[in-house]
C-alpha cells in the first residue's frame, strides 16, 4: 500500500513538472521561468551529488570544480572534436568520474573539516587550471557552443535538433527536468539498495564498517565518483543552455551553494537537495526587487532558517529527535 502511495506520488510529481508547470508558464506568459526552472533542475542534479557525499559522511564543497570540469569537457568535445552534445553529456560525466577517482583516492582519506577544506580548494584549482590551460582558452572561455543536434534512431527523429525548435527554452526545460527526474530516481534507488546501506554504514563508522569486511576505500571512491558524475552532467547541460563557459562559470560560491542546498533541504532526505535548490534559487530571484538589500535579506533569512530548523526544511515532517 505504501509502495503504491509512493509510486503515485512520484508519477504526480513528474506530471506536475512535465505537464502542469509548462502549462502554467504558457498560461501566465512567464517564459523566463523556463530558464529559471531549467537552472534549478540542473543545479539540483549537482546538489544531489553533494548530497551523496554527505550520505557517506563527507562534507563536499568541491562540486563546483566538477561542474566546471564537466562543462569544459562537453564544450571541448562539441566545439573542438565536433561531437554531438548528446554523446558529450555522458562522456563529460564519465570524465568527471575518472578525475574524481584519481583525486578521491588520496583526499578521501581525509575526514571532517579537512576534507571540506580540500574540496573547497579543489574548486579554486579547477578555476585556475581552466585559466592556465591552452585547451580551455584561458579567461576568454569557450563561446558560441552550438545547441544540441537531433537524435535519430533507424531514420526516425526521436528528438529534433534544438536549432529547429522555436521555443528553445522550453526544450531545454524538458531536457533538464527529465535529467533531474532520472538522476533523482537513480539516487533514490541507490540509497535504498544494498549499496545505499553500505554507504550509510560508512557514514556511521568507517572503522566498524571496515571490520565487517567492507572495502571502505573502494566504496567511498565509488560514492565520490557518482557524485562527481552528477556534477559533471549538471555542468555540461548548463553549458549547453548558456552556450558558453568561462573559468568563472562555477566558482567557490557555487560550490558552497551546492552544499547549502543539501543542508537547507535536509541531509536525511534524498529529495532534500531538490527542495533546497528550489527554495534557495527562487528565494534569491524573488529578492531581486529588494535591489541592494538582496544579499542582506537572503542571508538574514538563511540564518533565521538555520536557527529555527537546523536539520533542514524536510525535517518539519520528521518526528522531533532529541539529542542524547
Amino acid at each position, binding site marked *: 500500500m505504501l509502495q503504491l502511495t509512493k509510486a503515485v506520488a512520484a508519477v504526480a510529481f513528474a506530471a506536475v513538472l512535465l505537464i502542469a508547470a509548462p502549462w502554467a508558464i504558457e498560461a501566465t506568459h512567464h517564459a523566463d521561468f523556463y530558464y529559471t526552472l531549467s537552472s534549478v533542475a540542473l543545479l539540483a542534479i549537482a546538489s544531489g551529488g553533494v548530497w551523496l557525499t554527505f550520505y557517506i559522511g563527507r562534507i563536499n564543497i568541491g562540486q563546483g570544480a566538477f561542474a566546471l570540469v564537466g562543462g569544459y569537457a562537453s564544450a571541448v568535445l562539441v566545439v573542438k572534436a565536433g561531437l554531438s552534445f548528446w554523446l558529450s553529456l555522458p562522456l563529460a560525466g564519465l570524465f568527471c568520474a575518472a578525475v574524481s577517482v584519481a583525486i578521491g583516492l*588520496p583526499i578521501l582519506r581525509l575526514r571532517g573539516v579537512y576534507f571540506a577544506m580540500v574540496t573547497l580548494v579543489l574548486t579554486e584549482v579547477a578555476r585556475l587550471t581552466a*585559466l592556465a590551460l591552452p585547451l580551455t582558452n584561458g579567461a576568454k572561455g569557450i563561446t558560441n557552443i552550438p545547441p544540441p543536434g537531433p537524435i535519430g534512431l533507424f531514420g526516425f527523429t526521436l528528438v529534433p535538433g534544438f536549432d529547429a525548435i522555436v521555443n528553445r527554452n522550453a526544450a531545454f526545460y524538458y531536457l533538464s527536468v527529465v535529467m533531474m527526474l532520472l538522476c533523482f530516481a537513480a539516487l533514490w534507488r541507490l540509497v535504498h539498495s544494498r549499496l545505499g546501506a553500505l554507504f550509510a554504514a560508512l557514514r556511521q563508522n568507517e572503522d566498524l564498517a571496515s571490520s565487517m569486511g567492507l572495502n571502505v576505500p573502494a566504496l567511498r571512491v565509488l560514492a565520490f565518483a557518482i557524485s562527481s558524475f552528477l556534477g559533471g552532467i549538471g555542468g555540461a547541460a548548463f553549458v549547453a543552455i548558456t552556450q558558453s563557459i568561462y573559468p568563472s562559470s562555477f566558482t567557490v560560491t557555487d560550490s558552497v551553494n551546492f552544499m547549502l542546498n543539501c*543542508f537547507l533541504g535536509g541531509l536525511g532526505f534524498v529529495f532534500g537537495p531538490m527542495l533546497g535548490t528550489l527554495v534557495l534559487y527562487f528565494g534569491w530571484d524573488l529578492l531581486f526587487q529588494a535591489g541592494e538589500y538582496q*544579499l542582506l535579506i537572503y542571508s538574514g533569512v538563511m540564518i533565521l532558517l538555520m*536557527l529555527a530548523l537546523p536539520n533542514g526544511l524536510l525535517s518539519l515532517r520528521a518526528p522531533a529527535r532529541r*539529542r542524547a
Partner: protein
Amino acid sequence: MEQVLVNGFYLGAQYALIALGLTLIFALMNVLNFAHGQMYVVGGFIVYEIYGRLHWPFVVALAASALTLAVLGGLIEKFLFRTVIRRSVRDESTMLLAAGVAYFLDAAILLLFGEKQRGVPKIVKGVFVSDNLIIPYDRVLVAVLAILFIVAFVLMMQYTKPGRAMRALAQDRVAAQLMGVPVEFYSLIGFALGAMLAGLVGGLLVTITGVNSGIGGPISIKAFMMVMIGGAGVVGGAILGGFILGMLESVGLSVLHAYGDITYLAIFVALMAFLSVRPNGLMGKPWG
C-alpha cells in the same frame, strides 16, 4: 633573493595572525568560520573610517577595530552558533550558519562602506634601502606589530587562566566541563578573541594593501589553506602554516613569474599532494 625572503617573512607574519583567529575558533567549537575573511574586512573598514577619515590616532582606530570585532564575535557566538549547535542533529550544520554569516557580513559591508577600494595614509613614512633590500618602514612596523600580537596571544594561551581554560576546552570539552570550566563562557570568550584577531590584522593591513568589500572570501580561503598546512585547531600549526604560505607565495611569485600566473595553482596542487601524504597537516591532531 633577500628581498623575496624578507617579503615572504613579512607576508607570513600577517598570515599567521589571520590563521590564529580561525584556528582558535575551530579548536574551541569545532566550527569552521567561513566569515573570518569578512571579519577581517570589517576591521579594515573601521580603521579606514576612524584613522583615514576622522584622522584620529592609528592606535585608537586599531583598538576600536579590535573591540568592535570582539563584541561582534561574542554576539555571533551567543545568539547564533550556540543555538544551532544545541538544536542540530549533525555537527556540520554550523557550516551553513557560518556561510550565512559570511554572506550577511558581505552584504552589510557592501551597504555600509560601499564597493570602492579604500586606503589610508601611511603610518610611518620612509623606506629602508640597502644594497639589495628595499623595505618601506611601515611594512617593518606592521610586521613587528603582528609578531608582537602573536607572541602576546601565545603567552596568554600558555600562562593565563582564560588561556588554560581554552586549551582545556580544545583538548576535551566534556572533561573540561567536568573539571568545572565554564565552557559556555569560554566559548564566548574564544569566539570573541578569534574575531578580534581578524579585526586586528584587518586594521593593520589596511595601512598597506588597503581594503575593499570583495576580499573577504579570498582571505578566508587563504586562512583555510594555512590552517590545513599547519593542522587544524593547533596554535603552533597556524603560525607555522601562515609563515609557510607567506614564504611560498613570495618565492612562487618571483620564481614562477616567467610561466604566467600559476603561483596559486602550484601552491594548491602542492598542498593537495602534501595533504594526501600527511592528512592532518604538520602538527594537527588525528582527524581533528
